[in-house]
């Protein structure tokens, strides 16, 4: 009778350096991976139900509360979806201000993730704090970059966390020219610092781990997509936001309070985030970011999720360069907010959060109240892909001791900069061997 290999179980009870609370459970029989579960045990936050019956004007401020790191993504997605429902078109000036606001969020989120959350994985430190002892200049650079992103959010959004200036139709108040002009010197420093950051990250030692990902991101004909564009996949499928729910479906899974999104009809996982965006819109990066992409030694499109940190760096450069252009040429939008009238309807929108594609749909009554809401954050969309990655990555690291295996898996999860709070929903890791 053949001997049955022993079961081994690896648990990460609490994954650190991610936003929110979750865990990772892996069960092995011998060297065969039997089960991988990204378990999210943060309670459901039920924002979609909470929005029903509320005035549509409340939606940007309520949805911003879903996340303290990427509130702008929720605000931008909600106002675009609601404007689609109301038939509102905003002016080019408002459109540029919205891109500027998104630049601020990309800067603060990417700078934090690259320097304090992800770089320690590549440099062999358990935390940003431990890394700061040996890399004080780099950590200080990251903190200063993040600070300038926050300053932009404060000027444009009223405050850095959960901005309050975003409205359906535009902004409650357009900043004065001098308020934005005052940011220019720091953003000139930031552009060079972002280039230095990206070169630094490109020099890290990356595991050889390539997968045939189905990358998905917004693609816009004329610009690096943030707020508008077709939801485009690396296999060529390109759809409008209105068609999103016909092609992508959220499913309940028993081990997680977060929904898992899959592509239909194949039920396959897909990849959203900076790496997908750079792969699909490389030629639309800002000039400095585009030149840097050629310099960093990566053949684009890139299929190694560990090199996502370089894509994140390219977007940091892009965000500073585009923000500088807008800051230098800014003329206050008049009016800052386009007037509208209530009408019954449904509107959808997809925008690009720092962590990837985010989709919102709202049904509005003729009294301006929300009758139905659907919100699909990036981490829900990446969860299936993270589990799929782990199934293929684990055999490469199982010869290590259990702590090292767990660390390698946590590193892979952080490639996605998951925001568990956003997906409703700390990461525990368990590895079970039988």
């Amino acid at each position, binding site marked *: 009778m053949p001997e049955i290999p022993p079961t081994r179980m690896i648990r990460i009870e609490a994954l*650190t*350096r*991610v*936003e929110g609370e979750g865990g990772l459970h892996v069960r092995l029989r011998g060297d065969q991976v039997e089960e991988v579960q990204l378990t999210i045990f943060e309670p459901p936050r039920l924002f979609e139900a909470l929005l029903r019956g509320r005035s549509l004007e409340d939606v940007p401020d309520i949805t911003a509360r879903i996340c*303290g*790191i990427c509130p702008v993504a929720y605000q931008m997605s909600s106002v675009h979806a609601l404007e689609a429902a109301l038939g509102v078109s905003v002016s080019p000036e408002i459109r540029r201000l919205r891109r500027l606001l998104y630049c601020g969020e990309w800067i603060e989120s990417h700078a*934090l993730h690259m320097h*304090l*959350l992800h770089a320690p994985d590549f440099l062999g430190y358990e*935390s*940003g*704090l431990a890394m*700061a*002892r040996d890399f*004080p200049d780099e*950590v*200080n650079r990251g*903190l200063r970059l*993040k*600070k300038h992103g*926050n300053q932009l959010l404060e000027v444009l959004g009223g405050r*850095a*966390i959960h901005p309050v200036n975003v409205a359906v139709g535009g902004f409650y108040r357009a900043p004065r020219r001098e308020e934005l002009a005052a940011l220019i010197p720091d953003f000139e420093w930031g552009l060079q610092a972002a280039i230095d950051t990206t070169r630094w990250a490109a020099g890290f030692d990356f595991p050889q781990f390539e997968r045939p990902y189905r990358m998905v991101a917004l693609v816009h004909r004329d610009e690096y997509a943030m707020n508008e564009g077709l939801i485009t996949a690396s296999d060529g499928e390109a759809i409008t936001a209105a068609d999103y729910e016909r092609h992508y479906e959220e499913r309940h899974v028993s081990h997680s309070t977060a929904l898992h999104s899959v592509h239909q009809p194949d039920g396959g996982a897909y990849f959203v985030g900076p790496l997908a965006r750079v792969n699909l819109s490389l030629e639309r990066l800002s000039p400095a970011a585009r030149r840097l992409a050629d310099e960093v030694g990566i053949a684009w499109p890139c299929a190694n999720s560990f090199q996502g940190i370089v894509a994140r760096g390219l977007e940091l450069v892009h965000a500073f360069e585009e923000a500088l252009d807008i800051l230098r040429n800014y003329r206050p939008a008049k009016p800052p907010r386009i007037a509208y009238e209530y009408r019954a309807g449904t509107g959808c929108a997809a925008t690009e959060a720092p962590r990837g594609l985010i989709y919102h749909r709202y049904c509005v009554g003729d009294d301006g109240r929300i009758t139905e809401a659907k919100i699909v954050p990036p981490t829900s969309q990446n969860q299936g892909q993270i589990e799929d990655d782990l199934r293929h990555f684990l055999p490469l690291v199982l010869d290590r001791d259990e702590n090292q295996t767990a660390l390698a898996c946590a590193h892979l999860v952080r490639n996605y900069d998951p925001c568990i*709070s956003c997906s409703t929903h*700390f990461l525990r890791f368990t590895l079970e061997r039988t």
Partner: protein
Amino acid sequence: MNDDPVIASRVPRRSQSCRRTDSRRTLIVGLGSPHGDDQLGWRVTERLALELASSDVDVRTARSAGDLLDWLDGLERLIVCDACENQGSPGTLHCWNWPAAELCLARASSSHDLGLASTLALADELGRLPGEVTIVAVEEKQHLTGAEMSAEVVVSVERVVGLIVTSCLYDDALVGERG
């Protein structure tokens, strides 16, 4: 008569002529949220903004301890006011000088692990902390979503304000309970 053991031992019995405003560049930060006793830091800084309006002391509120990292440049003194837990009965007032081991016990974690202790440790590691850092903390009873502050913590707001105002106006160090 102030019967608070901390304040009673700190408030100097001096005439107004002895008063000399702290000339050091000082920042006071109230950390908190709108939930239950976690509002303490915000309520204290609201009061301090009025009490110290004519001084050069900067007073700010924050929801995330990580915000502190943006505000440290050029500071000579930092006072952080926050609610804490697992350090005594509700309403107990603590005054800790950094580095404070109690602080790590008081708050386990926060978004992206940048809680107050982690933030101050990171700033310390980077050599960015001012020479004097004091944490004034009050033991909370609850921080339920949307709840009012508990009576035990409400009464502590004025005690904390008095302690900090006295310290700033008379340039006294906020000495921790253990000295």
